[in-house]
């Protein structure tokens, strides 16, 4: 499971308006069948260490992809914008739970092709939001 994804989820769930913006919640990898839409799933894309010459790792930089799933394109985009706006309004050093975020930002927001949701024969609209951030865990 993506560490930055888990930290970002903790950040977003603590923000005002979370329940209304993402009623289906944020889940690692896949969401349970029947989850209320829109919902978000996330997957770690890559992770690199910020290190010193003596071999010590001082921080991690990770890219995580969050995929907003909804029955309509506009609803997915509104939810994705809510996620991005929260990050953009707080881009610098901060504590989230026991982790320290040094910086993070949204690098890409991409509307992707429709696909069939688990257990459903209706097409789902998705928006991918790529978050890249540098952090350390306690």
């Amino acid at each position, binding site marked *: 499971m993506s560490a930055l994804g888990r930290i970002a989820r903790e950040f977003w769930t603590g923000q005002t308006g979370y329940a209304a913006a993402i009623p289906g919640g944020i889940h690692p990898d896949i969401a349970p069948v029947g989850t209320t839409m829109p919902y978000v799933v996330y997957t770690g894309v890559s992770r690199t260490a910020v290190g010193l010459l003596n071999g010590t790792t*001082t921080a991690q930089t990770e890219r995580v992809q969050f995929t907003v799933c909804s029955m309509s394109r506009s609803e997915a985009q509104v939810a994705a914008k809510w996620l991005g706006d929260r990050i953009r309004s707080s881009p610098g050093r901060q504590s989230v739970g026991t982790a320290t975020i040094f910086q993070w930002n949204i690098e890409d927001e991409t509307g992707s092709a429709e696909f069939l949701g688990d257990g459903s024969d209706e097409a789902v609209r998705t928006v991918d939001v790529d978050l890249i951030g540098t952090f350390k865990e306690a």
Partner: protein
Amino acid sequence: MPDPVFPQGTTATIKDEPSGSATTLTDLVDVNGNTRSKPMARIDGLGDTEEKFKPIDKKALGTVAFVFHLTDDTIATNQRTTLETKWSSNQKVTIKVNYPGSFDNTTAICTYTGYIESIEDGGSTRDGTDPIRYTVTLRVTN
């Protein structure tokens, strides 16, 4: 057979000359190499068919640059402040770079004595994901 040397695991210490005690340089990320050189005098004559040189016995010991992550220690105890103080007070120092391996731990293979010639603070860019760095350049001199 001796092993090749790799940079991961390298540490460095600094001590004031002539009689300070060595302290570890923390947050070191790069050591930019030192070039020692000797000027060469050209000694070929007009009738020679090739250039000839002879070293002039005046060695240039060069400079060596150390790159650090800037850390958020308070200003008074920040390593950058410490090094800047040595720079502004013309403090002669010895920096010893300890590469991993079976070198002589007493002297280290790369030991540089001299004065801090410059401190360059790194810039910052909006999209940068690397920590902010600063570079300390030592002018090596006996």
